[in-house]
Each structure stands twice: as C-alpha cells, then as structure tokens.
C-alpha cells in the first residue's frame, strides 16, 4: 500500500468513570494508521471499546493518553471534516429527510439554493428520491440509516466514520445496505472507517480489517489485508478461508 497517510492514532488510551466513582479502562494503547481512500473495518465483539475509539477519532471524546492526527493536524474537537453515521440513526425527529440531510450545510451557512442541490444529490445517491418531505418516523430502519449516510456525505467530509451503522437492521436489509455502501464508496471515494461486530460485513466491505480483543480494555489484536476484487460475493472461497482464520483467532468472552 503506497498510499498517503490519512489518520494516525498514537498510543491512545481512555478510561471512563461509571456509576459516579468506578474507573473502567475502555481502550489501552491503540496505535493505528489509516491511508487515503482506504476502507478500514474495525471488527470486534460488543463491549470492546471500538465505538469509543471512533468517538475519539470524531473528537467527541478526548483520549487520556496518546493523540490522533488527521492529515497531520491533531484532532482537538468535532468538526465537519469528519462525517459520522451513528448506530441508532440519530436523526432529528422534528426535521424532514431534506432538512436532516441539509443540516450540516445549513450550519456552515451555505446559501439555500446550493444547499438544495447538494442535499438533493446525496438524497438521490442513497436512493431516497421522493421521500424528501417525509419525517423520520415515517421511514423504515434501512431508510433511516440511508438518511444518516446522506447527512454525513452531504457535508463532504475528508473521512467517514461509521459506527455499527447496520446494527439495528434485519439480515436482508443489512446485506442490501452493505451492497449499497460498497456502491456508494466506489462512486464517492473517501477514506472510510467502519466499525462492526459482524465478520461477514467486515469481509464484504473492508480493504483491511483490524481485529480488536474481545474484552475491556480494548486493544488491537491483529490486522488482515483483503486484496479481493469488488464487487465481492459472500460465498467467495478466498473470503471464506479468511473468515475461518479470523473466527479461529476470535475467542468469545461471555
């Protein structure tokens, strides 16, 4: 990979305070490089600190030790150069699809007509044409997450951070959304960091998979490069071999 370095995460650790006075170490000594236009998947079971890691990249949490840089600049807070798609959709129930998608543009004071054009472009891209004036409660789960994706893309971020975006969807919708995500990524090449707990999703989408340890505090276990052509098939034999390797390397801690 002779790509340019995009995001660099150096020895990051984070501890949370729980129930007022309990110290819970969530991430310990995570070092990680992400390259330009790479689709990186962070794979790990529930409760392994991967969402917290993403929040640190987003600037929503500050690491206790270590630092994160984006394009060489240290990350000090949230900003529109990073687009985030949240697990629980996090749409604004009081805004229509259009207003949700255009919110980031509006916050950056982009004139209305331009806003309308950009918003419409991304609404079309995620396949929600015709639903611009619907409120989120009128949409199905898959459609809500499309709004979430469009909202993040509309801000034209440098890097996309997706936090288990399809965790609440049923299996079929999930597969379909994975296909859509791959399609959108091919169409709008961006650096993507995708957090998931689903091995098949990771294999289907990722250029590289970072496997996290299955318990707190979260640490990086290994990483796998996937040099398979796209679009991929879930039943591809190389993919299945890799799947077996990763599964063998994952012990479940219950």
């Amino acid at each position, binding site marked *: 990979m002779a790509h340019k370095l995009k995001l660099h995460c150096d020895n990051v650790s984070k501890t949370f305070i729980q129930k007022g006075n309990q110290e819970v170490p969530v991430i310990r000594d995570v070092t990680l490089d992400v390259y330009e236009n790479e689709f990186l998947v962070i794979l790990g079971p529930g409760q392994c600190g991967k969402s917290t890691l993403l*929040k640190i990249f*987003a*600037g*929503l949490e500050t690491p206790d030790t270590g630092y994160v840089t984006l394009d060489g600049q240290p990350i000090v*807070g*949230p*900003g*529109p150069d*990073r*687009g*985030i798609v*949240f697990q*629980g959709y*996090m749409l*604004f*129930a*009081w*805004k229509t699809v259009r207003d949700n998608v255009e*919110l*980031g543009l509006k*916050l*950056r004071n982009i004139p209305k007509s331009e806003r309308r054009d950009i918003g419409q472009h991304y609404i079309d891209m995620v396949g929600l044409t015709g*639903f611009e004036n*619907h*409120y*989120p*409660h*009128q*949409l*199905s789960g898959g459609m809500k997450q499309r709004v979430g994706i469009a*909202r993040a893309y509309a*801000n034209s971020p440098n890097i996309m951070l997706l936090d288990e975006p399809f965790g609440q969807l049923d299996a079929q919708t999930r597969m379909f959304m994975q296909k859509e995500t791959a399609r959108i990524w091919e169409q709008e090449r961006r650096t993507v960091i995708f957090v998931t707990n689903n091995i098949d999703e990771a294999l289907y989408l990722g250029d590289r998979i970072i496997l996290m340890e299955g318990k707190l505090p979260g640490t990086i276990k290994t990483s796998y490069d996937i040099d398979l052509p796209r679009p991929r098939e879930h039943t591809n034999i190389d993919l299945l071999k890799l799947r077996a390797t990763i599964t063998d390397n994952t012990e479940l801690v219950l």
Partner: protein
Amino acid sequence: MSGSSIANETIDHSKNREPFSFYKFITNKYFLNVVSIVAFLLIWDYVAKEKIFRDSLARPLEVVDQLYMLTYMKFAGTNLAGHIWASTQRVLIGFIAASIVAVPLGLFMALNKYVNAVVKPLFDLFKPMPPIAWVSIAILWFGIGEMSKVFIIIIGTFVPCLLNAYNGVRLVDPDLYDVVRVLGGNRRDEIFHVCFPASFPAVFAGLQISLSSAWTCVLAAELMNSRDGMGFLIKRGMDTHQPTLVLGGMVLIAAAAYGTSLLVTLLEKKLCPWKRTIENL
C-alpha cells in the same frame, strides 16, 4: 400523518363479514357507551326526582333549563356568556403570563447548571405548597379584584410549565448534541436545532397540566370571592341553595376546561407535525 406511512407491506383493512350475533351486539363498544350515558342520566334524574338528597340535587333537564334561561336573562349584572368570559379571561391572562415566563426559565435552567443551582431549590421549596393555599394571602395583598385571581392562576400554572420545560430539555438524547457538533455546529446550534424542538412535546404536556390547574385555581378564587364568573354562579347557587345553578356552573366549567385543552392539543398538532399520535389518553 398516520395515513402516509410507507411500510413495505400493504395492510388489508377489509374484514370478512361476521354473522349477526346478539352477544356481539350487546358487548359492542359504542352500544355500551350509549347504554352507559343513558343509564347515568336516568339514574341522576331518578335520584333527583325522588328527592333522595332532599332538594339538593336538580334533574338534568332543570339544569339545562336554568342554563338556557341565563343566556337571555341578566344574572348579577351579566348573562351567561359574560360569566363564561369573565372566568376564561382570568384563565387566559394568568396562563399566558405564567407560561411566557416559566417556559423560557425552565429551558434556561436546564441549559445552565449555575442558574439551575440557584433557582431549583427555591422551586423545590414552593412546589409542595398547593396553589390554592395562596388564596388568602393573595386577597390580603391584592384585595378582592382581578389581580388576586390572576395571581393565584399564575402561581398554579407556573410550576408545571417550568418543570416540564426543564425536564424536556434534560431528557433529550445527549447523542443528538454530538450529531450537531460533528456536523460543525456550535453551542447555539445545539440549542436551536436540538434542545428547543426536542423539548416541545414536554413543554406542551406541561401546558396541558397548567391549563387544568388554571381552571381549578380560577374556580377556587371565584368561590372565595367574586362578582362574576362561573365559580361565582356555583358559589351563588351554594349560598342561596339552588342546585340547578351549582350543577349548571359545574357543567359550564367542565366544558370550558375541556374546550381549552382541546385547543392546546390542536395547537400542538399544528406545531409538532413530527410527533406520533399516541392512542387514547
């Protein structure tokens, strides 16, 4: 809004026709509702006619008659509409004055913890005191005029307005703030795009509670001391032992309270089109 849902499935609402059954008919909801209302009126009428409470209960038709009479006859200086308006006016003035101050203050308290630390204990101090307990001191302070009645209503409506606005903001999903910040918004954007709209339903719930409290307060104030209003009708009926007047006043105030609460509901539907309607109650 319910009709425009875009689920993947289409639901067929047409049911197969069932054969007529007597049991089904008498347990039908609407049939039972009619039975219930009719029985209620008949029992009321019977109890009044047989003078079970001696002469202290009027028959339903007598109450209607009394109300009708008041529409064209002046009673204590004004007709029925005048009395209704007198009470409604007090409620509206007190309610609007209180909500204009209390809702912003509640939102502000939720947004600034220092303001909260100063103001909240004072409200906790006054909260357990029923607004009606203020009647005597209000009369002492403001005399028996309009001011003392409006004061009671303000006392009664202020706290629920404030607390609901306060809780409305505090119960907002904090992750929604993250969304605004990630999209490049500042604190002001968080407040205008998340706090205010998200707390709207709670604010309206508070307004509803306040309104019902306002009617109770205006009634209490008018029962204590007044020259017009629906509470005055009830009080006059009490003093001169006219059950028709008392019951007429009760019917009127119930209708007025119901009407204003309906107005607030309509306003909420208008202002919060995103809010899903929750069935019943």
